[in-house]
């Protein structure tokens, strides 16, 4: 009874008007631009005027020969970065939740790249990856390993950028895994210790019970991968030629060239694509989520 009247009181004190500030910000900075984008994607827009041309922009965008390779690169990038982040971050998280010395220092070191601006990382790595005098190839060469042209070789460029993305993103994935592992009740570990040891703990406790964390990492890095832009742009500009173009860089170049309507159409396509991939994935993961 008491609590009922209390919630009534709360409702009276906080009227619907309280939604207003948030709604205003959301509306002005998100809703209106999004709706405008749908309109401008149907026009030939020069910033000075816009001429309605129906679905021509979409036809043009989807018939762009570079779009296919852009799509392929986007998928390669998203799958590769999210996969590698899990493979590397999970063992790291295990290691850094176990009883080792200097745990805090290592956690900090691995998390550090997350804090650095992506553009700075891109510029730094494109210098490190310089084929003749760059640090990476000088090091590889001095121990007799092959010294590829990381960013200049059209077949290699997209993978080189993806590796840098992994380096930069691993800290965040690791932190999510650490949170996941720490939320597993200790009894399970006790049981695993009695049953066998580290491998059992990993295979039968950590792997299944940190599933929520795994899903979060996959989702976040997959969405990040699909929308990646800053790293690609600072390291290769989508090149050499079109070799490491992803969807966002194709769109950006169209924007840069002054095809504002066309690039807006590209963004609408990107929006639909990301939704079409991520929504079912999210539903699937939600269905499998664990209550600990």
């Amino acid at each position, binding site marked *: 009874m008491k609590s009922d009247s209390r919630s009534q009181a709360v409702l009276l004190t906080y009227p619907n008007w309280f939604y207003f500030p948030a709604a205003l910000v959301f509306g002005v900075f998100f809703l209106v631009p999004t709706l405008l984008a749908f309109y401008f994607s149907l026009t030939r827009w020069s910033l000075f005027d816009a001429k309605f041309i129906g679905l021509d922009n979409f036809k043009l965008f989807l018939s762009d020969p570079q779009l296919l390779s852009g799509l392929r690169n986007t998928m390669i990038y998203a799958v590769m970065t999210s996969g590698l982040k899990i493979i590397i971050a999970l063992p790291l998280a295990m290691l850094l939740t176990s009883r080792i010395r200097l745990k805090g220092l290592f956690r900090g070191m691995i998390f550090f790249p997350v804090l650095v601006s992506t553009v700075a990382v891109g510029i730094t790595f494109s210098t490190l990856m310089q084929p003749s005098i760059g640090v990476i190839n000088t090091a590889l060469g001095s121990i007799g390993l092959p010294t590829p042209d990381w960013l200049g070789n059209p077949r290699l460029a997209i993978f080189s950028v993806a590796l840098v993305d992994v380096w930069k993103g691993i800290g965040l994935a690791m932190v999510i895994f650490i949170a996941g592992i720490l939320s597993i009740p200790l009894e399970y570990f006790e049981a695993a210790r009695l049953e066998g040891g580290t491998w059992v703990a990993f295979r039968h406790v950590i792997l299944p019970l940190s599933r929520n964390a795994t899903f979060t990492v996959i989702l976040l890095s997959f969405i990040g991968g699909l929308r990646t832009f800053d790293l690609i742009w600072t390291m290769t500009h989508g090149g050499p*030629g*079109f070799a490491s173009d992803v969807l966002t860089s194709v769109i950006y170049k169209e924007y840069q060239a002054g095809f504002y309507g066309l690039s807006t159409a590209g963004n609408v396509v990107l929006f639909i694509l990301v939704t079409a991939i991520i929504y079912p994935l999210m539903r699937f993961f939600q269905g499998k989520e664990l209550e600990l």
Partner: protein
Amino acid sequence: MKKNQMLFKVLSILCLLSLLAACAPAATPAPATQAPATQAPAATQAPAATEAPTAAPEPVTLTFLHWDDQTTRDQIKAVTDKYVALHPNVTFNFETMPGGADGDNIVKTRLATSEMTDIFFYNSGALLQALHPADTLVDISKEPFMTNVVESFIPTVTQEGKSFGVPFGPAMGGGILYNKKVYAKLGLSVPTTWAEFEANNEKIKAAGIAPVISTFGDTWTSQLFVLADYYNVEQSNSNFAADYTANKAKYATAPGAMNGFAYLDESFKKGWYQKDFATDKLDQGLKMLAEGTGAQYPMLTFALGNIATNYPKAANDIGFFGIPGTDASKAGATIWMPNAIYISKTSKNIDAAKEFLAFLTTNDAINAVMAAVPPTGPYLIKGIKLPDNVLAGVKDIAGYIDSGKTAPALEYLSPIKGPSLEQFCVSVGTGQMTPADAAAAYDKDVEKQAQQLGIPGW
């Protein structure tokens, strides 16, 4: 009652906040580098010309947007220092932007949002046309100082019969910069046909020197083989520019138009490029050329200025020739018009800006520029003579101009330039695309641009 009070509080806070937001830009005291507030009504704010500029000059601050490369900075600093010495009431506030497409974007966005500086430095020709100059820039075609400008330049800053800019900096040759010492050591002579160029390259390569320097790390530099070959394209299609603008002539089909792409392809397949051609940048290319580790560099001659500044000992070792064609008797070069300085329609200091533009067309201004950066080509202001001690490469261009064997680059003859040319050139130059595919794809790119610009016939 209580509810109403709450509502009142929220609303008053909101009002306060919005007031603050509205005041912020207006309250900024100094016009300085801050762009004018967005809500400032566009052209209507320009003050009417009320007083003669000489009478009791009031302090004026002109904001000035320009590219951030060294040569541009040096030239602009020289000319504005000189101007300020003559007009102590004027101060300049500079803002810089990167070159290439990033800079284009900044200029377009700032013009469209009425946040452009008073004056800015930008390309003439096709890139200017994309700015809708008739709507965004101040028409200066009737100004008396425009008679100081060489006539052939005027069309490159004109749209719908109105002109918008005065040339700044020298005209340039586009073609091949070569290291004369390497040529002398190997006993080579300047090629007048592509076949001779090929023969030279094999000898240079045999000597362990990279015959052709390529710097795809700065993608725009990849376009020179295509764009600078325009003189030769025009030799075999005298009406190419008009037909191209009218959607009749295509790179894929017009005779010889595809050659530029083929040259990129041949250079890649025959291994003429230096080792790191795919990622090297302009500065690295110029270093190679100056030091003689690379023999030839398809480039614009503004780079002679960079070499003179950074490698003064090599300044006169660098010569220039046009992209060789098929007929030795017609060997010529493609010319790039100077960039220009424009006045934004939203400027509040249009009169002061015009006065500065007038100064840019005087001998004093050009002499100041030449003193700061050695001339890398002719200045398109009447009555300017290049000094006798100009760089060797500049003499080479002057030779082509004097003998009448030049053509302006296509971007000065047609408003259409496809935006992805550099990517197609890199694709061909790294062996990912055949010349024929690239030419056809570039034609598509051109079509997109023509439609965007609303050019009749597309």
